[in-house]
């Protein structure tokens, strides 16, 4: 028999860090579900198994459920078995599985809402759904209990959701599952969901890629964060007969690619050139790419402002973007000298700014800047800042002004200076 084992779709998930782009990221996951169902259909699987966390939460909007059903309806020949996980547990009348849309769910969909044995394609599905978000009880105990009934020569597939109980790698109330649970329950295959990266175990030992195992956690089919290796797959499982070793195939289904690119602002032209090159490579798949650009290096405010402005347009075509500014903003010695020559008073004000930045963020003093004539008293700095932020001096905490703030101040100054020069 052949089936797809997936888990952790987290449909309706939240992407607060992407603001207005969050909805696009949510929609992509439906697209990925469709991809996986299509692949299942093409592989003529006996069923499509979802081992928990189809939904990000039991309280997702009805639209999420309807869209999901719409995807299932497109593949009526693929029986879908859904197990409630810790994100969408069957925890009572308010549970998602009791919601009205489920009264008219697609005919090919079965919700394994209660523990029990379900016949499918000549095999037995021994399901242990989760009833709550947290529990210290191993959910495979229920499978072991169900497995006491005679198998009658059928293949037995256990399905549940939880963390593998490796010391130090799980929380005690995270539905801990003994790593050799497939052996203890005596099933031919134990389909587990929870962790978001691909995991295969056999007799409690991690199985190297390419080797088959009986306990599989396929991870989330659609990565939801940067640097999430091992996500973006479903497992295509083939079991020829009871007690035979299952053949597990890692099937990529992810729609999005999450990329982190670096830009060294210390040499901005070269950095931009390199970044442009990398972006050009992925530009054909821009609508499926989430880009994060990490700015670093010591940079002058003017260059930083220019770089950020350039990035804004360079990243525009991509589905979602993030800019991580890890630069250290500082005027160059030449810039400081120039300002000193142009306006000694401005140069003095800049030393004061550098001193306040140093006091607030403990940042190093820029080379070429002499702070000996700058504001020296913490009280004076606090009094100055208190006027700025509209607080009483005794209540003013300098650390409210972070490195970002001082970058902005430098950028503002740089911008105004530029305009003044023009």
């Amino acid at each position, binding site marked *: 028999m052949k089936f797809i084992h997936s888990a952790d779709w987290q449909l309706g998930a939240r992407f607060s860090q992407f603001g207005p782009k969050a909805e696009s990221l949510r929609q992509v996951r439906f697209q990925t579900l469709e991809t996986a169902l299509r692949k299942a259909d093409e592989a003529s699987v006996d069923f499509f198994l979802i081992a928990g966390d189809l939904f990000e939460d039991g309280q997702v909007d009805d639209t999420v459920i309807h869209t999901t059903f719409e995807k299932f309806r497109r593949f009526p020949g693929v029986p879908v078995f859904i197990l409630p996980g810790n994100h969408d547990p069957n925890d009572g009348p308010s549970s998602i599985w009791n919601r009205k849309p489920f009264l008219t769910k697609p005919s090919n969909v079965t919700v394994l809402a209660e523990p029990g044995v379900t016949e499918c394609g000549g095999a037995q599905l021994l399901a242990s759904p989760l009833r709550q978000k947290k529990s210290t009880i191993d959910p495979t105990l229920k499978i072991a209990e169900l497995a006491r009934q005679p198998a009658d020569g059928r293949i037995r597939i256990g399905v549940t959701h939880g963390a593998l109980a490796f010391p130090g790698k799980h929380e005690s109330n995270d539905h801990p599952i003994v790593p050799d649970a497939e052996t203890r329950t005596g099933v031919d295959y134990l389909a587990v969901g929870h962790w978001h990266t691909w995991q295969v175990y056999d007799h409690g030992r991690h199985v190297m890629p390419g080797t088959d195992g009986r306990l599989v956690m396929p991870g989330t089919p659609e990565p939801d964060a940067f640097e999430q290796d091992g996500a973006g797959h479903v497992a295509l499982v083939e079991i020829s007969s009871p007690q035979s070793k299952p053949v597990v195939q890692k099937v990529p289904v992810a729609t999005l690619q999450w990329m982190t690119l670096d830009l060294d602002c210390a040499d901005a032209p070269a950095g931009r050139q390199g970044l442009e090159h990398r972006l050009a490579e992925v530009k054909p798949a821009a609508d499926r790419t989430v880009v994060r650009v990490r700015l670093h290096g010591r940079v002058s405010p003017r260059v930083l402002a220019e770089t950020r402005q350039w990035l804004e347009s360079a990243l525009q075509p991509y589905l979602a973007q993030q800019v991580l500014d890890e630069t250290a903003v500082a005027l160059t010695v030449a810039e400081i000298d120039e300002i000193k020559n142009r306006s000694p008073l401005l140069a003095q004000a800049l030393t004061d700014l550098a001193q306040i930045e140093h006091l607030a963020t403990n940042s190093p003093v820029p080379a070429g800047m002499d702070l000996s004539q700058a504001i020296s008293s913490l009280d004076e700095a606090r009094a100055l800042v208190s006027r*700025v932020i509209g607080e009483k001096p005794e209540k003013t905490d300098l650390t409210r002004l972070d490195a970002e703030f001082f970058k902005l101040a430098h950028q503002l100054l740089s911008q105004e200076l530029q305009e003044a020069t023009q």
Partner: protein
Amino acid sequence: MILESVELKNVGPFRETVRVGPLDPGLNILAASNETGKSTLVKAGARALFDSHGGKSKEIKELRPAGTSLAPSVAVVFRCKSGNYRIEKTFLESPRSQLSQMVDGQWRPLGEADQADRRVRELLGSEKPGAGATKPEHWGLFRYLWARQGEAVAWPEWDGEAAKLVRARLARVEIDPLIERLKSSFWSEYEKNFTPAQGQPKAGGPLAFAEKELGDLKAELKEVRGKARELEELQIRFQGFSEQTTTFEQEARKLKEKADEIGQQARQVELLLPELRAHEKALEAARKEFHRVDGDLRAAREAQDALQGLKKEMEQSEQRQQELKDAEVENESLLTEADGALQEVHHRRAGLQAELERVQGLLKLRRLKDALVDLQKKLQEAESQAAALSRLQEEKSKIPGLTPQKLGKLKGLDQDIRELDAQIKVVGITMDLTPDKASRVEVTESGAKRSLKIQGGVTETLSSGQALRVRLEGWGEVRVRSGAGELKDLEERRREAQAELSKALAELGVENVEQAASLLEKRKDLDGRIREATQDLKRALGDFDDLDGLKARMNQSDTEHENLRKSLHPESGEDALSISGLEAQEETLKPGLRDVEKTIQRDERALKELADKQASCREERHLKGTELAKLSEQTKSHERKIEETRARYPEGIEVMKARAGDAFTEAETRVESARRKLPPDYEKLPEGNRRAAAAFGEAQRDLEKCREDCQRLRGTLEALGAEGLYSRESQLLEEIGVKKAEADAARRRGWAARLLHDLMERRKQAATRQVLTPLEDQLSSVFAELTGVSVRRIFLDENLQIRGAGRSEEELLAFDLLSQGAKEQLMLALRLAVAQALTETEPQAVILDDVLANTDPVRQARVLDVLQAAAQRMQLLVLTCHPDHYRGVGKVVSIERCGIP
């Protein structure tokens, strides 16, 4: 520029040519009365220097003499660092302008008309106005150096190139315009989002707008999260209800089983209970019969026992009665014997008592007699002391009533007389008479005659005041008269004193003062002796107040003695007994009497005890008699009761008891047998049955209620679950993230702009202060010299305008609030400071046109000092209508009439 001279023609009041000059390079005083054209001279000079010769403006026309169309001509000779120049201008009619330079002592033309005008502007750094006449702002540096009439307390604006030059000279550095521009930009940026005063988000600004939206979103998020929490709580409650439902179901099931079981048992009991009740009734009857027979048997046995006891008791009572009777007889005999003995002792006590009383009477008689003798002795002594006292008092009564005060008065008068005598003696007549043999002399003084007997060879001195007449025995009369007038008065006073002394002596009955003193001493001595005699009499009287008391007491004692003696009739032997003998007898009799008293008490107690014992025996014997009668009655009663019981049980009471016991045992066995057929606690079964049914009912109701609650909660949960709270929360969080970023960006941008602005402002202020301080020092110093007040400091603002004066910034008095005089002086100080700064590159002329109108005379004097000192470095032209204020300083110049060369 230094002014050398100014010449005018057809200007103001001057139709002829007038000139002021040559002027001194130092201090020049142009003093003239009002309306003599001082200010006109300065105005016309300025027109010549700064205005175009072709100008026809109102100001130029005003130069003409009033009501004429004459062409005003002005010539000014001045010196610059490039040389000496002369500018001559004629305005309005045939206008002309000519500039000449002194070269080798000759004026050589440099240019004419517009060229001349332009060249002068170049030399003086002035500007050409767009149209019309020049105004001070076109005059370059002279705008600040020339104080025109009426401008004493106003300082021109610091604008234009000349102002920049002056400010740069004064304050050395200029504030970088870049700083001002950046500050302005940053402030504008800040004001987009914040209120300048409070630094709060500005209403309608992007920040306030974003914060408002953020607030709304957060409120909505809070609501959604509240619902989510409510959902969680409801879920927990639902789970609780579910578990409770299961519990109630189990409980209800158990209760039902229990109620069924109890009901079954109750029905069984209902069938068996009547049989048990019948056996129990029979058992009760058998128990009663047995108890009745047993009671009778016990009563009969008790009555028999009691009868035996009563008989024994009666025997004992009779025996006791007899014993008491015997004791009574014996007691009677003892009582008679004791009474006799007591009577005898009473006799003995009466004899002893009589003997003791006689001895005590005799003793008292003897003591009274002795006391009487003592009283007689005391009376004799007291009477003797009283007689002595009486004598002394009589002696004192014979002495006149002299007192120390009276004696003092006498002595005073005597002393007065003596002093008057001495005075008379000094001023009066003194006559020493020394007869050869004893002679009698008759002296008549002031009409009084006296006779003196003088021994032979003895000198008798006679003194008198005004006149003395001495008749010498055997010789005749000698009359001596004094011429001293005052003697009459002295003698008069002496006469009065002598009369007063004589009167006082007569009143007291003494002859002279010495006798009075002696008698007073005697009186004092008598008083002492009387006090002593009085003390002696008091001592003799002792406790008695006076002699009469003592006598009365003695008479009383005597009477008492006589009465006692009569009552005792002592025999002769008794009279002979001494007091100590009598006391010895008394002491001998007293113990015997006490012993007899004790014997009487003891015998009386013994007699009483015997009497009590006899009474007790009699009473007990009476009681025993009564008791015996009662016992006899009881015995008879018991005997009757025994007889009656025996009569009721003809077959014997023991036999009847055995039969009743057997019947009871059989009934008991039947009851036990019936009870064994019933369940334990069968009596509580009906109640248990009712309780079990009620408990089951309650559990059923709880179960139903729980199910209803569950159902209700299920509906609520389903409804809440369908709201898609998570998705709503996600959406809100994402929107909040965007809005928060917007608000943060606006806030950060505003804060950054404000920080940059404030930092620049801070540095600018510090720089301004740094450059202003020396100028302020200079101004403060000149102002101190002008005012004589050295503690005040002058404060300038960054525009070099005077802010005010004061000891410190905090005590600063604003310029506008200073007095007019102080303002004038401050302006003068600033003007001199400006001139001083400019003089460093070129000599300068300062014109002060009546600028110290409000300065008091004291400060005016100081002004002269300052001006004199300043004149060492610059040219000063002071125009004044008070020549006296400037007398003695500088060069006095005047407006001289002459022709234009």
